[in-house]
């Protein structure tokens, strides 16, 4: 596909890196010449310097022949204007980043009236992910499929647990629960394991199952699944606002520590149920005074990665709270993964996943298109959800008879409101929703899981 990306900031760059890996023809537009040159050097893309909302600049970038335009500059208004003009000139699909809470309530109206294909709000999607984790703190990361009916949960095998030293084949005997272990991370390795694989304490394990079965499973292996009752959030940015709003509706107590007085007043005004503290969240005394040792969960959302990491490390030493850490930059992710930071949230990856999913689905409008996509382990393993159409080549054949590619796992089949954890005898039928976990990237169609016929 021919894609134009306007704005090469953090989110822009992540999207460019993902999409260029998938082989699309990408043209980037940014006002800053140095940024354009640097990005065009690092990825196989073409650069245009200029304001993306300008008709002539878009012409230069080839809007006439583009299939999709993404506007991800800092300014919501400019993104909307860019999409509006692009739509009028080129008639392509458009996606805008809009993150101001004022607009976020009017997203549907805006996108319908302006003819946008999609509006992305990284802060809000990240907040949703954090809220999910806080409702189920046993997991480090939760990805949902089939409209929330199927989840992939990631958790760390605790010391001395039932699972420590247990081979995967024996788990179903020991713990009677309808779940499937789809990936294991051990040190820097990402493994899609088979039945003889033996788990160890400290492994990061992802399981696929329905939410109810997952709860059952965690109970049986002795992991506390109580949801948190109160949350301490450091930093009162947009993400904190969205998160507080979501948590309030489920009755979780929210306390936000924010430094800027003006911002505190705004937050207090728009979040009447939350407690807003004006103070320096990185000050140890302030944290202790506000009861950091007693709260059930701690979320660090300041604008500076180093502060977030340091805060989370500190809290880990003084309490048993569920910790969530926001990290913006993706560099040194191996180092970050090796620290006790609880759940690490990368907002830009979440956004990039959304966009990649959209692009893959667009590319394959007629086939068994991608419904959801998550990166389970950095950029190594993907989990994809497919809707199965009539006549798909995988239909009505037992899985053991299909020649499925190595490092690819059919993790779950969702049929008639029921989740099926498949075995070799299971068959995929038309109308099913299938979840595939794959160490190979770039699948567009369900049939991509099959070995190509030589």
């Amino acid at each position: 596909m021919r894609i134009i990306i306007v704005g090469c900031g953090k989110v822009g760059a992540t999207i460019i890196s993902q999409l260029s890996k998938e082989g699309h023809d990408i043209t980037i537009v940014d006002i800053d010449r140095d940024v354009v040159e640097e990005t065009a050097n690092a990825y196989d893309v073409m650069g245009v310097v200029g304001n993306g909302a300008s008709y002539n600049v878009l012409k230069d970038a080839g809007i006439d022949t583009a299939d999709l335009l993404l506007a991800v500059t800092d300014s919501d208004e400019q993104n909307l204007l860019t999409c509006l003009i692009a739509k009028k000139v080129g008639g392509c699909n458009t996606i805008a980043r809009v993150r101001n809470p004022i607009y976020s309530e009017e997203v549907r109206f805006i996108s319908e009236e302006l003819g946008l294909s999609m509006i992305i709000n990284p802060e809000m999607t990240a907040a949703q992910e954090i809220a999910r984790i806080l409702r189920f703190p046993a997991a480090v990361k939760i990805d949902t499929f089939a409209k929330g009916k199927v989840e992939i949960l990631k958790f760390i095998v605790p010391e001395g647990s039932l699972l420590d030293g247990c081979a995967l084949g024996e788990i179903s005997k020991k713990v009677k629960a309808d779940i499937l272990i789809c990936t294991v991370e051990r040190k820097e390795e990402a493994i899609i394991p088979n039945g003889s694989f033996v788990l160890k304490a400290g492994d990061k394990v992802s399981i696929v199952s329905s939410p109810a079965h997952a709860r059952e499973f965690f109970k049986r292996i002795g992991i506390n699944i109580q949801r948190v009752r109160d949350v301490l959030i450091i930093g009162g940015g947009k993400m904190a606002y969205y998160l507080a709003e979501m948590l309030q509706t489920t009755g979780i107590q929210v306390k936000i520590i924010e430094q800027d007085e003006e911002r505190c007043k705004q937050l207090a005004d728009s979040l009447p149920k939350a407690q807003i503290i004006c103070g320096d969240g990185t000050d140890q005394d302030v944290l202790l005074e506000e009861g950091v040792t007693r709260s059930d969960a701690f979320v660090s959302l300041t604008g500076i990665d180093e502060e977030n990491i340091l805060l989370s490390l500190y809290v880990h030493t003084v309490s048993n709270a569920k910790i969530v850490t926001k990290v913006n930059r993706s560099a040194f992710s191996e180092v970050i993964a090796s620290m006790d930071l609880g759940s690490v949230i990368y907002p830009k990856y979440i956004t990039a996943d959304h966009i990649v999913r959209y692009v893959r689905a667009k590319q394959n409008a007629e086939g068994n298109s991608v419904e959801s996509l998550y990166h389970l382990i950095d950029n190594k393993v993907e989990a994809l959800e497919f809707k199965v159409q009539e006549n798909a080549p995988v239909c009505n054949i037992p899985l053991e008879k299909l020649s499925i590619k190595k490092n690819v796992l059919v993790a779950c089949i969702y049929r008639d409101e029921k989740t099926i954890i498949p075995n070799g005898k299971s068959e995929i039928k038309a109308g099913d929703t299938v979840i595939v976990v794959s160490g190979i990237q770039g699948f567009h169609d369900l049939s991509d899981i099959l070995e190509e016929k030589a």
Partner: protein
Amino acid sequence: MNFSVILYLLGNVLLLEGVLMLLPCVTALIYREPQGVIYLLVALLCALLGYFLRRGRSQKLIFYAKEGFVAVGLSWIVLSLAGAIPFVLTGEIPSYTDALFETISGFTTTGASILRDVEALSHVSLLWRSFTHWIGGMGVIVFLLALLPASGGYNMNLMRAESPGPQVGKLVPKVSETAKILYSIYMFITVLEIVVLIVAGMPVFDALCISFGSAGTGGFGVLNDSCASYAPHLQWIITLFIILFGVNFNAYYYLLRSKNKKEAFQIEEVRVYFAVILLSVIFISFNIRSFFATYSEALRHSAFQVGSIITTTGFATTDFNLWPNFSKTILVLLMFVGACAGSTGGGIKVSRIIIFNRTVQAEVRRFIHNRSVEMVRMDGKSLDQDTVRSVSVYLVAYVLIFVASVFLLSLTGTDLVTDFTAVAATLNNIGPGLNAVGPTGNYADMSLIAKYVLMFDMLAGRLELFPMLLLVVPATYRKN
């Protein structure tokens, strides 16, 4: 420095050369010449060696700017070292130094020859000699980029190191697609020229060699008198095509793809290029009219020589060494101007000349109003400081290499005009100079040192100086 990626690239280059060397083998079959066996053996050897070098590829195929420049510089040297072997083995050029000179001259599209009697060569060797022009014209690395699986944006560092011009950009987002487009255009015009020449009555073998020579703006002919004995209408056809090959290939892309065809004619560089050609032809035609019987003959010879020199091809239809001083001076000046950036021609490049001029103008205006803020513009857009700076540095480096080369040549006992034009003709990838190295002379009598200096100049000229300079600087080989 990551040597494993460099070796991987060198392996690919050798493999490609092996494959390309099969073309002369086909010629050998047609003309039943025994030399073909030698070409076949060398081709196999290259391919085999290339295959083994490729196997040691490292995990990460990333060419940072430094590796890109060094890899491209070394590729061209390896390419020439291997390409010279058949000439020695067939006994047609017994000295390896001479064979290497001839091959480098071929790949860099210079066309400077050490052969006294070209017609004595076998058809196989003649074809290989001309074919090296065609390969070198658009570049081996660009060819490889079109074939190799894409491995990220760092490929641009390779393309930048090999492609001529102050600003190397892409036509389409992907490097490999850009390379494919460039080669398609290149191949199309080459085939067109071959067909036109054959239809117009040139023997097929000559048409092939001359077309390869003009496509790469090289200049190796198949006859001792270059192009002088071809019929006038054939000379006109060659003139037209060599001038076309000196045009920035972006213009052809705009003509093909862009909805707004006018864009092709609005490129300033292309306009200036044609203006310079037109003026030079007019001046020289008047200056030399007394040498020829008719005006049309004077016009033909002046157009041919101007086209041949400005595009740095180096074909000749007459001995311009005998022309009046004024005409010779224009030709020598045209040697330095060169063709357009992004074409197959050499020289300083028209766009750089434009930028020099405007930089000087801006500087002069700053003397008058010393608070004035001046921007150097081209094609209606102001150039950023980095481009202007790199163009100026290019000129300085160019002059330094030029002076050093002339100085080294002066030690070997040739006269000043010969030394000066020999360096100009090799550093600008033209071929013939004046006096001893004029259109009727050759480089055979140059001393050994002079030949190696000129070989360096040819490579430096083709790769636009810096890849070759990087190779001789010790800092390149330090660990960090």
